[in-house]
């Protein structure tokens, strides 16, 4: 039982004799200028492959090389671009998609790699950098949307760094369930509780005890907004067409068993991708979808073929196709990445270990040019090919932000008063905007 916003506001207004600091934040939505309106249509969906996907088996195959593994490449809808035979559905979406084959990132420890790929900065003990989600939430967020501008479905993502808790990821599980959302409380009573809370909260926040109590107060305000919002329906996929659900790989109860190829399994990844599209439609500028299970130190190829790639192929291809069919792809960047890649060398347990020196990431939409593979690795995939510019995390980030219309001249001030250029002054990958 979600409380209606207008109803709730009327109660707060009725008791305006007592100061109600919480109410102010609801009503302070700013009038947006034209440029802001433009940015507000933009969004980014990050598909994060947690623990390091073996991109040499997915996007940059080396058939015949000793490092190549058993998979064969297949042709795709992008002329001259081949990908793994176990990605047949994505092969049909490659005209929207660009593979960046010369990623070179140096960080092969999970924590450090995840941090670097999410922020464009290597970890530094004296400053916490904001992640993609926080930056895009800040730059493209729409104050009229109650859902937090940075949502992470099924994973933890990375935090807001010095941008503050207002831009922290809103973490929900892969089913889009938001726990404890319903208060089941009469509006006047909630208003009384919030008045009492506002008094303690405001007084403590004003006592020079650092930023944290002040940030806490902002999060309280956002949470109240969320509890009384109809927009939360975006997390529930029940009202989607059966065909759409099937395309994403979400089982439809009662539907006939699907034919070979299409409906492989009921996957949380597919469901999360569908939730991501719904959130973007509702005005959320950044959604991260996590898919795990990639730490393939052993049995890499069996696991890829039987488990991971069918799931990835279905969900990712459905998302890109769906965004394209709805006319949303031009304004929505899809970014596929992991902590790092995996070793070209196949170890004694038929596995691949951590490898950051040369690997692939993938982008689609968001103003970036698809249908191509940018950069290349050498014959056996052990280094970026001679004469090819290596692509760093910050270059990818700069390119995605540019595609979303965010100025790369934007500079933030970190908490220790250091100016921090957005995306760590990364260089735009020019092929994506040719």
């Amino acid at each position, binding site marked *: 039982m979600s409380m209606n916003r207008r109803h709730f506001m009327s109660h707060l207004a009725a008791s305006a004799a*007592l100061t109600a600091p919480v109410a102010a934040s609801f009503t302070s939505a700013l009038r947006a200028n034209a440029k802001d309106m433009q940015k507000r249509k933009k969004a980014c969906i990050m598909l994060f492959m*947690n*623990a390091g996907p073996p991109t040499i088996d997915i996007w940059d195959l080396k058939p015949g090389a000793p490092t190549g593994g058993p998979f064969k490449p297949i042709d795709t809808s992008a002329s001259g671009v081949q990908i793994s035979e176990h990605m047949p559905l994505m092969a049909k979406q490659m005209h929207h998609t660009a593979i960046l084959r010369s990623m070179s990132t140096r960080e*092969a*420890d*999970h*924590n450090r790699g995840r941090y670097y790929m999410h922020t464009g900065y290597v970890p530094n*003990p*004296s400053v*916490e950098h904001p992640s993609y989600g926080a930056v895009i939430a800040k730059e493209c967020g729409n104050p009229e949307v109650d859902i*937090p501008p940075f949502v992470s479905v099924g*994973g*933890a993502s990375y*935090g807001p760094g010095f941008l503050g*808790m207002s831009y*922290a990821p*809103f*973490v*929900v599980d892969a089913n889009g369930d938001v*726990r*404890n*959302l*319903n*208060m*089941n409380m009469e509006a006047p*009573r909630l208003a*009384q*509780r919030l008045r*009492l*809370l506002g*008094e*303690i*909260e405001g*007084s*403590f*926040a004003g006592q*020079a*005890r*650092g*930023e*944290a*109590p002040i*940030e*806490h*107060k902002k*999060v*309280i305000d*956002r*949470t109240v907004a*969320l*509890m009384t919002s109809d927009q939360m329906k975006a997390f529930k996929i029940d009202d989607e067409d059966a065909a759409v659900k099937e395309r994403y790989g979400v089982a439809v109860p009662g539907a006939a068993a699907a034919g070979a190829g299409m409906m492989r399994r009921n996957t949380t990844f597919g469901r999360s991708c569908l939730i991501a599209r719904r959130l973007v439609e509702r005005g959320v500028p950044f959604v991260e979808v996590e898919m*795990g*299970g990639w*730490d393939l*130190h052993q049995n890499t190829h069996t696991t890829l073929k039987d488990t991971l790639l069918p799931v990835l192929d279905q969900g990712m291809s459905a998302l890109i196709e769906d965004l394209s069919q709805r006319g949303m792809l031009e304004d929505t960047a899809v970014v596929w990445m992991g*902590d790092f890649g995996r070793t070209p060398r196949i170890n004694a347990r038929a596995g691949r270990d951590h490898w950051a020196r040369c690997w692939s990431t993938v982008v689609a939409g968001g103003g970036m040019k698809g249908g191509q593979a940018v950069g290349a690795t050498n014959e056996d995939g052990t280094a970026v090919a001679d004469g090819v510019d290596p692509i760093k995390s910050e270059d990818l980030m700069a390119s995605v932000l540019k595609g979303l219309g965010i100025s790369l001249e934007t500079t933030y001030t*970190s*908490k*220790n*008063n250091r100016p921090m250029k957005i995306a760590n002054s990364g260089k735009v990958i020019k092929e994506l905007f040719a």
Partner: protein
Amino acid sequence: MTKWFQGICCTFVGAGACAIALLQPHASSTAAEIAAATDASPATRELPRSASGNVNDQDIVKYINEQIRKGWQEAAINPSPPATDNEWCRRVYLDVIGRLPTVEELDAYLKSGGPDKRLKLVSMLTGEAITSNPKEQAAADKYLEEYARHWASKYSILFVGRPPAQRANRELVNRDGMQAYLRGSFLRNKPWDKIVEEIVSATGTTSPGSPEFNGATNFLVNKLAENASEATAKTAKYFLGIQVQCTQCHNHPFNDWKQDQFWGLNAFFRQTKSVQNRNGQNVEYVTLDNEDFAGEGSNPKEAEIYFELRNGELRVAYPTFVDGTKINSSGYVNEVDRRSELAKMIVKHENFGKAFANRMWGHFLGYGFTKPVDDMGPHNPVTHPELLDRLGQEFAARGHNVKDMIKWITLSEAYSLSSKSTPRNKKDDPSLGEKPLFSHFYIRQMQAEELYESLLAATKAAEGDPDEQAAKKSMWLQQFTVTFGNDEGDEATTFDGTIPQVLMLMNGDLTKTALTSNFMSQLTAGNLAMPDKISYLYQATLSRKPTSRELALAMASQGKNAQDVLQDVFWALLNSNEFIFNH
């Protein structure tokens, strides 16, 4: 908010393996022996020397204060005024036993007197209070139980993480077993070096009730994959404050660590064998043992291992400690038990005491002397190097007595200061990336376990079957865990001040239960006047009385019955920043 504020969060309380009967107060530092010791301010009285060390507690606290003050002088800043007695009491309960003081406990502390009242409280909370009255002794022993449970929880989370939201019973590690071992150790005040030796050299089985149960085996049991590379990295990191994980594959880019040192350390773990005992997909228990190791060159007399440099060149390694000490490289267990040899060297290494001191300082003060606390070395500056050295040395000299360390830190001036900054120390803010100078107390959010235990205490709901309580708590905590599913065992918590946490506190079952608890019914029906009832709730949660404004606001809800009014007040208190922050 920095990453340092996240992290530690826990799961099971102990499995009931150890009883109060095991209580053996540590001989060297009972409350009686040092009853006259210092408050935070420099004291003048001569104190008895402690039994096992050459320096008494007061001198160490004095040294801490001098070193910290030196930092203020160099940075030309002034400390904040002292925290109020209420604030200090709240803080010390949270940090030493993991929950807020009840109204009665707070009151008892405020009414206590004498220059040593702080020492007395810390001694009581660490379970050292000795009385001749059996009834009072039973009450005092309850604190020992809480103390042991709190630290077992903290260190269990560090060593084996929180349980995943799903399929915890498919994991090799048994967290009940880890907690039971740690809880027993803290109950008996087992010295830290003994604990670490037992953990590093452990053999036996992981699950309480399994044959040859030894909960200490849980530290290693889930870190043996990939030739025990995680066991190598975590042992160096947690017990010596040395981070070697990157050197598995290459020489460290930022410090002096080389790849051969990683593998030299790794070689100590290679006699280790683990055997799983499964029931279907569930792990019943795992047996950790040592077996003869032939080495990768198949010569057990010289059991060597090989590793590959980045250029593909193959190198050989033998068991070699971080300081270069080599041991007999025989792989036969009856000739050399490599892990036992390693354990002995670890606890004698100069970093061993420092690593513990640094982690404990970080626990109590919000920031350690290095960031992170377990990455020490020439590449990472230490805020107070002499102090860290001295704490490490004194800790070793005192026989690695954990309670001594707790006493020194909680009685220090830095720990006694207000969390309000002043214009004279505003720049001392480590959340801005500045080096911490400890000129005011750095506030941080309570951990999920601390919130849970505090609510049990506040609503007097802590009684009941301990196993059932533990299971309930564990279930509740799982909602916050997000695991990354990689070979470093990384995990995160959503109990980090973001919306899911706020939603849980506003609408979750825990709050509902607290609001409708017997405690609330009794308070509502009780004889106190309404303002006193409201005041009681403020003290139970914020450890202070309401301001006149707050009281007026609470009393102003017209036409409400007493139960609703009190529930609304309690709800607001539980959701406030002042409640959730340790300040």
